[in-house]
């Protein structure tokens, strides 16, 4: 079946440093990959998405490139801010009835001053 793997459960870093969150996936279909962000006591919301191989997509200072050859969609930011402290989910979808999302277990990012 389809699956998404996020290897880091918790990432703690200092404001201003770069961050990379890993995401790999497995599917036999043509994939759409997403990053959702969830701040404390809030609902998840879309951060960015892609279905184009080897094309960088960016939003709010975050960026990711879908690499179908390695089944990866890692999330990066050059300089994290305190407001980036949140739970980040990688998710996978494809064209189907219902367009279900398969989520990874999430990576919690804690940014310290």
């Amino acid at each position, binding site marked *: 079946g389809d699956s998404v793997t996020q290897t880091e459960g918790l990432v703690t870093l200092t404001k201003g440093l770069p961050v990379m969150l890993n995401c790999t996936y497995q599917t036999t279909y043509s994939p759409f990959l997403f990053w959702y962000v969830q701040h404390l006591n809030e609902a998840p919301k879309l951060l960015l998405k892609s*279905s184009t191989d080897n094309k960088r997509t960016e939003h709010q200072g975050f960026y990711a490139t879908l690499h179908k050859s390695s089944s990866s969609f890692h999330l990066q930011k050059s300089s994290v801010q305190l407001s980036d402290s949140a739970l980040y989910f990688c998710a996978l979808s494809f064209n189907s009835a219902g367009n279900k999302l398969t989520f990874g277990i999430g990576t919690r990012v804690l940014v310290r001053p």
Partner: protein
Amino acid sequence: EAAVTQSPRNKVAVTGGKVTLSCNQTNNHNNMYWYRQDTGHGLRLIHYSYGAGSTEKGDIPDGYKASRPSQENFSLILELATPSQTSVYFCASGDWGGAAEQFFGPGTRLTVL
């Protein structure tokens, strides 16, 4: 602005009791979803619907039923609640297509004693 609302926001239920969680969306989206969120598991799909009158099983449907009486409303029903169903439940809506963003409601915190 996309809008998904859930009620109640908090619920305490007794083991063996019936619980109904309600979700309303004003996005005119065909697809609606129910997830539960637990630490270490991410977001897991319980049931989903791709139109009024339809309900489909997600990845963890056991112990849950769903009802989609209209385009706007999607309910999750626990006929016999158990403590293992203590969780935070999120409803979401989304349009057709694998690239479609899902819009999440604010969540319902359910505690089963």
